[in-house]
């Protein structure tokens, strides 16, 4: 049974990855998942200098979903390279680093440093709705995004360059095309959807940051639609995510056109979600006599509209 998929020049042993920000730096889940079994580990968004993040409460539950406004608390590039990278390098999985800057220059510096450190992939987070400055400007306008990706592209020679798209747009095909044209090796989607919760008792927003990003099963139908739209539009691979809880969900994303899938919020509900999903995919393939995972990717059947 062949589970291998390619994202740019990156060969993943299987299509199951983790979603940035939901899997720590890998270590946190090593008690629950054999990291060697995963297609790739995508670590928490890294910035040039450490970020302390937003004041609490930072998360809350919503119907079939959750909001987060972590504010990209992270150890910063230097500490990441020194303390976090060596740990995850011990495992036989691909490492993709999610990065966030507030200027083009910051992205370029982050990307160059990581490219030099030979991480397998760099994922540009241009879509975080939870920090006041930064990321957000890049995702709202496709031309600005294109310029950012072109610049970063020039400084990335070894790693696979992935652009992570925001769902908070009128037409997600536009930034996807812009990323492709600017030289991205792949796009990943969706990031969280900007949302809000109110506490009737205190009459305040539940999150101190007021708004946060919605993730989890609630967003799955939106994510699936966007993955479908984008995968029919661009010729680079699409990494699908948004509410994937089990193998069935993952396979639906792949049918809709995702070459690989990332598991986010599900890790919190079941810390071995990633490996359970991988096992489930294998079982499905066996039961349906599918020898190569590529038979599933983009395999959605569409009825003739006149039927």
């Amino acid at each position, binding site marked *: 049974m062949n589970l291998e998929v390619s994202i740019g020049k990156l060969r993943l042993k299987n299509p199951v990855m983790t979603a940035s920000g939901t899997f*720590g730096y890998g270590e*946190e889940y090593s*008690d629950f998942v054999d990291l060697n079994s995963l297609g790739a580990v995508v670590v928490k968004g890294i910035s040039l200098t450490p970020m302390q993040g937003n004041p*609490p409460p*930072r998360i809350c539950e919503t119907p079939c*979903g959750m909001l987060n406004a972590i504010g990209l608390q992270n150890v910063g590039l230097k500490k990441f390279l020194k303390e976090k990278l060596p740990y995850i390098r011990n495992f036989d999985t691909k490492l993709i680093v999610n990065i966030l800057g507030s200027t083009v220059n910051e992205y370029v510096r982050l990307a160059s440093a990581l490219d030099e450190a030979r991480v397998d992939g760099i994922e540009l987070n241009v879509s975080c709705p939870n920090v006041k400055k930064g990321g957000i400007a890049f995702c709202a306008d496709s031309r600005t995004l294109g310029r950012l990706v072109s610049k970063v592209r020039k400084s990335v020679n070894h790693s696979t360059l992935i652009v992570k798209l925001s769902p908070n747009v009128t037409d997600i095909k536009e930034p996807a095309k812009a990323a492709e044209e600017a030289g991205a090796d792949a796009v990943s989607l969706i990031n969280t959807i900007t949302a809000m919760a109110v506490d009737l008792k205190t009459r305040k927003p539940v999150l101190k940051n007021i708004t946060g990003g919605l993730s989890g*099963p609630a967003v799955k139908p939106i994510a699936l639609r966007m993955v479908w739209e984008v995968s029919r539009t661009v010729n680079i691979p699409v990494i699908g995510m948004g509410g994937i809880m089990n193998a069935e969900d993952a396979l639906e994303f792949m049918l809709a056109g995702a070459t690989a899938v990332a598991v986010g919020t599900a890790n*919190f*509900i079941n*810390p071995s979600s990633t490996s359970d999903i991988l096992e489930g995919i294998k079982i499905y393939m066996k039961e349906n006599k599918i020898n190569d995972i590529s038979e599933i990717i983009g395999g959605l059947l569409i009825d003739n509209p006149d039927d």
Partner: protein
Amino acid sequence: MLHFKAEIKENIPVSKNHYLLTFTPLAKTPVPLPGQFYMIGIGNSCDPLLKRPFSILTKSDDSIRILYRIKGKGTTLMKEMKTGTVINVMGPLGNSYPIPKKKHTPLIIAGGIGIASVFYLAEKLKGKAIVLYGARGKHELLMLDELRGLVKELHISTDDGSYGKKGTIIDLLNEFHVNDKHLIYACGPKGMIRAVSEFALEKGLKGYISLEENMACGIGACMGCAVKTLKGYKRVCKEGPVFNIKDILW
């Protein structure tokens, strides 16, 4: 195993708003320390989505007890869980209450459901602890009989005066003659914890508090449960839930 299935042995009300849940892990799990907690999965659907954190109340050979207050959606569904139901549990998680040195007298201060967090500590301290315990009224004083057998002294206050001293636990604390041999362990509502902390800092007392914050992962991965400390944001699920009183920035 830190993530395991468990079978519910008992889930019974102990007051109008409080339940006692006993479950037996169906796998070998680490022995919990006082102050640690479990994340409990509720129901078989995606709503509620996240597991809920609860302190270890007691541990026997084959089962674990937690004491919980009906708060919102999750705990309302939780109280309907029947004996025999199999649930998903993660734990024990977080750090624990440091055991006091010989020279110290542990002074446990529990407000309301905060008793759930310090009860196991009191048990482990084998009759050495002095406990100040405050609740709204007589009917919300939980585990009183068991507690009495475990501690050196038990002082009680109720807001409505229906049992013990009438007033808050802070009133009780103010009346109590503290000295620098007392090492504080406090758990309860935020306002109370803060008042206890301020009291301690003022009197130059050392001690620990257990904090609560909304959680998603429970294992330090999501950065969701941060609280502000002198050393920056710390995760309640990982560096906590027990913090040194002097470290917290209110």
